[in-house]
């Protein structure tokens, strides 16, 4: 039961991060929101494994963390390499 409620609360946090990702306004705000969404999702996956009673599949959370990190680095790299006009706002 406890795990279920933790899952729901983490979903709320993920939803809020998504709102920030939709709203922007600058590219960096979006990257921040995506990064935060990713870390909270890793935690969600970990808790969800316990919620369903089969917590042996935490490898997915690890891969998720890894891909999320590499994704953020890649976005930064490519945003840097395209010379941006002004403040990086949309």
């Amino acid at each position, binding site marked *: 039961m406890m795990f*279920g*409620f933790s*899952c*729901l609360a983490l*979903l709320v946090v*993920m*939803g809020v991060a*998504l709102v920030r*990702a*939709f709203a*922007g306004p600058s*590219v960096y705000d*979006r*990257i921040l929101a*995506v990064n935060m*969404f*990713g870390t909270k*999702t890793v935690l*969600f*996956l970990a808790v*969800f494994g316990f*919620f369903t009673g089969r917590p*042996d*599949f935490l*490898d*997915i959370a*690890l*891969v*998720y963390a*890894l*891909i*999320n990190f*590499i*994704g953020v*680095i*890649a*976005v930064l*790299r*490519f*945003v840097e*390499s*395209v010379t941006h006009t002004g403040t990086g706002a*949309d």
Partner: protein
Amino acid sequence: MIESLINIILFTMLAATSLAVVRLHNLFAITMLFGVYSLLSAVIFVELDAVDVAFTEAAVGAGISTMLILSTLVITGHHEKNPKHGPWLPLVVVILTGAVLAWGTLDMPLFGSLDNPIHQHVAPRYIQDSPEEIGIPNMVTSVLASYRGYDTMGEVVVVFAALIGVLALIGINEKKCAKRQYSSDERPPRPVLQVMSKLLIPYIMLFALYVQFHGDFGPGGGFQAGVIFAAAIILYTLTFSLDDAFDLISPRVLRPLAAIGVLIYGGTGIVTMLLGGTFLNYSVLAGDPKSGQHYGILAIEFGVGLTVATVMMLIFYAFVSRGEKGKVE
């Protein structure tokens, strides 16, 4: 109760993300949200018990697709022109099609019901007999590598064919840029990232090996492991430079390895035929059919992992070298 609530929230978030992807006009923002969309669908796959699929989607779908779209945007530019024609005609077409499909769902078997027709045929046999017949607990791996081995072989060939297509279309520019020397009072770019990726990359590769060989018992296998291995090199390329990555693993080495992976897969099939079995029937590989299946699955998963890892690295090299160094002369 909580389960269906989580399900509904996740699906709603997915729908909202897809809508945001379409509404934005900065292609970088679109790509980022598309990455979120992929990762979110991976979470939904976990929630729907499809851990292997989630693993693949997180690694292949979210990681590689996003990376490729980003490196394409470097070449094509990231601002979208406003469409000249109004949205009304496509909107009408889409709403009509959607309405018809939604009407069709009313006859669908309900989500989660056990009497859904797809649970009646073939699947019960896999679920009941595969742990006995193949001897490995992960049913998805048994079906993927053994029962439907032809299918997976075709898929590996498709991935290889895509590599050939990409290399034919854009190629890899292996010309070295002049090495930049840093004077003593000037720091190299991204020092923090470089140090941490140096520390991290060996563990990522170790984790890839774990995923490769643990695929029989948990989620994982050649596809996922290959992509994670490629992700380590991609991280290296991103934090250092393309030339450094070429020094580390040259495309000259990778190209034959991609073909060797496919050959290992096909060769396993040939060996089973030579030993008197049918193509890709691993039971003949050892005296005991179960150990034979084990050896066979290990061999073909290795082939899959090798091909996928090298293909992903080569495709990434191709896109990034096109962006940084221009056309192949």
